[in-house]
């Protein structure tokens, strides 16, 4: 009986287990794709892609880093096809690097389609792989239908599609050169992590940590990398060990590694494995060959800093050795226009400088190509000035006269070039003058789309499209006029666009990081934030100073990271949120409501470009409550520095150190970044996905350099009411003085000619 009960019990457990397994699998499959895992998010693709015509395709670049050994990949693709399609002649085919891996019929009766396919790992090489989704679509049996029939379409729902790559990590080569092309690679699309070991959390060590962390972050390009800070080795993650040679040897000595005398070296991550108690040693030392420990050392702080600089600079050639000494570091010259694809006023750039190769559009479905560049966020784009495009273009013969090269700026059509010579043509220096208002501060893209039409387009004719071709040569140019730097702040959007105001000097040499509380958490938060910000301009923050106290913070941009109770009163008092923080109240702060005047409406009606409306900013009546909510929230606040006009304070704080750390790490999320606007941001860290609320708080102030005396512009713009009052007084004063002078002259004149005053 007991045994029978056990058997039943065991059977029941198995059935329950199986049931749970099925339930889990069903749940997993029904759960679909989370936004952060979707193809559109992970591979920077649009959410929806429409495939039109007889044959159309969309290609997604799948990066596979050298560090991965891919076993397989699973594509889960959602799509909707037109219900007018003919099933027998309509297919959706998937190819990887032109190797077909799957195809399905496009079924008109079941237009909502989902497919899950497995891609063998050997098809994905260690580079950027083309995952191409091709639709061949027909709605008539004989094919005599217009190619542009509106019924012929299939939409790929990339926002709810995913590509899961199963991989194992390869062994780390014991060579310093692997830092750039193996360990920290922008092709690593998974969650990237780094652990930094420092001796203590002093400002000097945190400064070194931020520099090294930025060097790693820049190697990951735009990808997030979560960085932790500690005083010991962390397993299953790459470690950076920074400190004096003594400290490094002391720490590594615990892992029985040979004494290090070089400054820069790489080894497999050592680990202690616990042994049985009876053993003479409680642990044995092994190594994790899939992760690395990199030490950056020096005899003293200056030497250590030199080593860290060498490691951080992308231009510094790391040798193919396991360790090396750093003799000297040549720090590149940085100006305010340094950075990846950052363009400067009064300069002309060849497309090649912006990474534009010789680009040929062929066929009638040739997509579009973007010329991406970045304009500093504080550039004043005056609408009456124009930038120029000087295009070198050649196009093929035998194209219909309505073929054009369309040009868009940030998604808005701005111009086109007619390709109407049947014999083809070559334009050298085809010049377009386009208003600067088509561009925006920050990231910009000029999109070129070749609309090429063959001469023969009859329904039942052999339509030849292979000869359709247009090439834009990389010696084409884009030129900019003289522009000033002037921007109204606070606006946190710019912080996450290109780091403004902290990156006024992209190497942070005009920025001070103030850490009032030098704890592990605030240090980690600082390292993450600075590393994230350094990615915005792709420049190592060589000039950043880290301080723990308010000295030497006068004429600088100030980044303050700390819990609310640790932030110095002088800074806190300058924050527009100070009253709320100090003495919460219900009500509205000044300048908290987004205003849209009649003039703005009129201006928008006249403006040739529709500006993307700012997301509605929450009324701040509830802001006090948000702050009172305290734990689990993270606050970002930008306001004018109390120490210097036209300088800013960016204050990152939380109720506790843990909140501070979680908030800083949350800022790596591009979605969080994109929602940060206005003068203050509250991030609710409690939900799984942080909830971001932006507020327009604080008095507008200005920064930049404009005209002869920027400070006057700053004063006038910042205190317009007072400026008008003073101007009126000056008018009255001058008019009064001149009236007196004139009257006196008249009186003298009349006296000399013997006339009475008042005759004039």
């Amino acid at each position, binding site marked *: 009986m007991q045994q029978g009960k056990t058997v039943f019990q065991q059977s029941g457990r198995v059935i329950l287990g199986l049931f749970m397994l099925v339930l889990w699998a069903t749940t997993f499959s029904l759960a679909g794709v989370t936004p952060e895992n979707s193809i559109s998010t992970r591979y920077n693709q649009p959410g929806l892609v429409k495939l039109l015509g007889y044959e159309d395709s969309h290609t997604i670049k799948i990066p596979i880093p050298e560090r991965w050994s891919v076993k397989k990949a699973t594509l889960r693709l959602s799509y909707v096809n037109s219900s007018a399609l003919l099933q027998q002649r309509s297919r959706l085919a998937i190819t990887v690097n032109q190797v077909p891996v799957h195809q399905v019929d496009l079924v008109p009766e079941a237009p909502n389609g989902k497919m899950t396919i497995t891609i063998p790992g050997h098809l994905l090489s260690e580079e950027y792989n083309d995952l191409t989704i091709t639709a061949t679509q027909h709605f008539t049996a004989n094919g005599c239908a217009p190619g542009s029939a509106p019924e012929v379409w299939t939409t790929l729902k990339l926002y709810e599609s995913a590509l899961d790559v199963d991989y194992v990590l390869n062994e780390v080569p014991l060579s310093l050169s692997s830092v750039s092309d193996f360990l920290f690679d922008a092709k690593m699309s998974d969650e990237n992590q780094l652990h930094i070991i420092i001796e203590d959390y002093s400002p000097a060590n945190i400064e070194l940590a931020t520099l090294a962390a930025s060097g790693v972050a820049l190697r990951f390009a735009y990808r997030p990398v979560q960085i932790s800070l500690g005083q010991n080795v962390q397993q299953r993650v790459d470690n950076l060990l920074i400190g004096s040679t003594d400290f490094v040897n002391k720490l590594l000595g615990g892992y029985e590694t040979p004494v290090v005398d070089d400054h820069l070296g790489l080894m497999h991550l050592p680990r202690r494995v616990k042994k049985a108690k009876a053993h003479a040693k409680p642990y044995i030392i092994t190594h994790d060959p899939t992760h690395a420990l990199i030490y950056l050392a020096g005899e003293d702080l200056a030497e250590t800093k030199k080593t860290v600089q060498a490691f951080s600079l992308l231009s510094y050639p790391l040798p193919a050795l396991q360790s090396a000494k750093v003799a000297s570091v040549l720090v590149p010259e940085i100006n305010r226009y340094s950075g990846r694809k950052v363009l400067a006023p009064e300069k002309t750039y060849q497309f090649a400088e912006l990474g534009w190769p010789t680009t040929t559009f062929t066929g009638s479905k040739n997509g579009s190509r973007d010329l991406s560049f970045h304009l500093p966020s504080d550039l004043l784009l005056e*609408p*009456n000035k124009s930038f120029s495009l000087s295009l070198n273009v050649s196009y093929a013969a035998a194209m219909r006269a309505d073929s054009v090269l369309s040009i868009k700026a940030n998604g808005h059509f701005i111009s086109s070039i007619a390709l109407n010579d049947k014999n083809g043509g070559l334009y050298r220096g085809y010049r377009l003058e386009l208003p600067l208002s088509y561009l925006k501060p920050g990231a910009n893209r000029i999109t070129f789309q070749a609309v090429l039409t063959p001469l023969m387009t009859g329904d039942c004719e052999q339509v030849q499209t292979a000869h359709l071709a247009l090439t834009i040569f990389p010696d084409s140019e884009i030129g900019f006029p003289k522009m000033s730097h002037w921007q109204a702040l606070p606006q946190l959007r710019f912080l996450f666009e290109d780091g403004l105001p902290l990156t006024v000097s992209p190497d942070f040499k005009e920025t001070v990081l103030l850490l009032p509380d030098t704890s592990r958490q605030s240090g980690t938060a600082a390292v993450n934030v600075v590393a994230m910000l350094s990615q915005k301009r792709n420049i190592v923050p060589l000039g950043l100073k880290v301080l723990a106290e308010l000295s030497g913070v006068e004429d600088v941009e100030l980044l303050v990271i700390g819990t609310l109770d640790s932030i110095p009163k002088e800074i806190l008092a300058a924050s527009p949120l100070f009253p709320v923080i100090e003495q919460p109240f219900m009500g509205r702060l000044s300048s908290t409501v987004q205003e849209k005047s009649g003039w703005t409406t009129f201006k928008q009606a006249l*403006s040739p470009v529709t500006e993307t409306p700012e997301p509605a900013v929450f009324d701040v009546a509830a802001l006090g409550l948000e702050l009172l909510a305290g734990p689990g929230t993270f606050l970002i606040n930008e306001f004018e520095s109390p120490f210097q006009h036209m300088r800013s304070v960016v204050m990152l704080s939380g109720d506790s150190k843990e909140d501070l750390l979680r908030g800083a790490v949350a800022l790596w999320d591009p979605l969080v970044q994109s929602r940060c606007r206005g003068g203050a941001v509250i991030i609710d860290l409690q939900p799984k996905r942080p909830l971001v609320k932006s507020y327009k708080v604080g008095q507008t102030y200005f920064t930049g350099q404009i005209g002869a005396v920027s400070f006057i512009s700053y004063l006038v713009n910042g205190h317009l009411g007072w400026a008008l009052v003073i101007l009126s007084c000056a008018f009255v004063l001058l008019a009064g003085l001149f009236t007196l002078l004139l009257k006196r002259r008249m009186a003298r004149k009349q006296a000399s*000619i013997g006339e009475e005053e008042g005759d004039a």
Partner: protein
Amino acid sequence: MNKDVAQDKWYSLLDRPWLLYGLLGSGFLVVGAIIVSYVPTVTQAWLAWGLVLVILILKKLLVRHPLFLQVLIMGMILFLAGRYFLFRTTSTLVYTNPLAFFFVISLFLTELYAMSIQLLGIVVNVMPLHRREQSVDLNDPDLPTVDVLIPTYNEPEQMVAITASACTLFEYPRDKVHIYILDDGGTKQKRDDPDPDVARTALMRHETLKNMAGFLEVHYRTRDKNYSAKAGNINEALYGSSSGKTNPSSDLVLILDCDHVPTRDFLRHSVGQFKKDPKLFLLQTPHFFINPDPIERNLDTVSQTPGNNEMFYCKVLPGLDFWNTAFFCGSAAVLRRKYLDESGGIMGETITEDAETALFLHGKGYNSAYVSRPMVCGLSPETFDDFIVQRNRWAQGMMQILLLKNPLLNKGLSWTQRICYLNICSFWFFGLARFMFMIAPFLFIFFNLKVYHATLAQCLSFPIPYLVASTILSNLMYGKVRHPFFSELYEMVMSFNNIPAVLSVFLSPRSPTFTVTPKGRSLDVDRASPLSSPFYILFALSLLMYPVALYKLAHNMELFNSVLISLTWGSYNFLLLLLCLGVVWEKKQIRQTHRIDVREAVEVVFRCQDKQHSVSGWTTNISEEGMGIILTETVAIDAGCDVDIKTQDSSGKPFTLWAKVLHSFHKDGQQLLGCQFQYADELSFFNTTDYIYGDSERWARFWKKRQVEVSLADGVGYVFKLGVSGAWRHLTGVFSFVLHEFSIQQERGCNKVKLFFSNLVE
């Protein structure tokens, strides 16, 4: 009294330089700082239009503290100008291609010029000095002696006779006045001309004027050779020996053009200034014109708007006088002989010898004065081309002064005098400026040359409020003497013919020669001026501008802003162009003498059919030839009847004029007479001349009557009406002319055909 004390207290503040300069510096610092500040376009729009509103309000309040408020308004406009200039300089000078940039810079320089002229104009006209005329005691034995010089060249002898006879009627001791007719049309050189017609005409003129001078008991002078034009003529009389007679050597010299008939009180009201100010070298008086200038006549604005020269004589010269820069205008001016001798007489290096002489003597530290009472009556040029000849001479002369006698470098002048002379000279660049403003919108619409890089919002925030404010200021400063947009009209209508004249001086500063302004010409029929061609071209381009602009817009809506700006600008130019077309359609002018509307009481004594009775009435108009009269009661009268007209002038001086009734008719229940003056002897001629030209109060009244300020809105409406009607008259006139020519040609053709057939039949 208290007011004076308070004023003295304020003046004493000005005597503390540190305080004065400190306050001025602070004020300028604040205004300058805000001028150079960058503000977003929307803020600029509020600021600029807010100031325009404030200016409008201040203008309404101007009755109290007029000078203070006017200076305040000027300050605000200069502030707007400063902001616009800064925007224009820093934001709009965009290089796109060499040709476009050439025009970008040209337009910018043009605007810079216009702004500078406005600034200089504000300085010059900030506080006009309206002097009262200083009457002298005619019994004073120390009254200075006066030489009256009447230079003449080719004007009708009758014109000279009237002027000379008017001079003999001066209310001034006759023994202290010496009148000289300086005849340059009857010189020995002319009388000996190889062309017998020229020689005969010169001889006849010489004899006529010599006899007339004898008859009028004035001096006649001529010279051997014609050189240095009017200046040479006067200097020959003052210092030469070719006449073989004693040179004039009185204390003062009055110079009168021979068509400038002085009133009898001229010397009485002008000589006193010289007694008051021993350093005075010049007293200038206004030139009052009895006839409308061609612009007034062709647009028919005579009775509705002030004349072209009234702004100069009623505002600019008083303004210059305040800065001791009233300059010699060639006629109707008294000069002190001893100072004139220092300059060697009238200077003649330039063709505006008058201004050149004044510049020299101002540089010597002597004073000038201007009395704004009109005391001469002259003639404007009758036709548009004569008008242009006159203005071009002035323009060329002023350019010569600028180039050869640069007032800025004249160390004897005060800074304000330099500014005033600079303003007077550089004003004459307006032709180039107007031309640039005219073609600017065409450059974009027809040639795609973008010469003004600003958005619509920026235009509405910077130049438009500035222009509106400037128009308000112009109306405030000159409203009574220059109605809205008439300055623009005068400049535009002169510009195209002014440009070659001005440029020629730059190419060769010494080449221009003195051209006598033709006076008293007549026109038999309505006709287009020979100088109309540029306006036809511009008219055609303006008409074409609209369809081309619409075509552009239809094909590229991106150009909406640029097209709208160009079209608005072009339409404004088009309105001025319509006015110009009205001006260059010349109305016929057959009257040799000009009537002036006068309403004065008369008693008409009829002496016909052996009956004699008198009826009261009032004059409607007078001229050298006769008078129009409205009678208070109806009288049976025939044409040819002799009448004695008893009347008196403003001073109460009685006159009895003999006239003959030419016609009598009834209108609106009233009897109107047209009378022609009759001259029994020389006394009746003097009597009539004295009545017609002797009363300065009549001219002053006539001027004042026209000086009525109109609002900007009314001004715009009036100009629009004038433009449309003027252009319509011109176009229909041209059409009629073409039809007429066509019918003549057709008739000639028919005649030829008839002749051909008749020959054939024979």
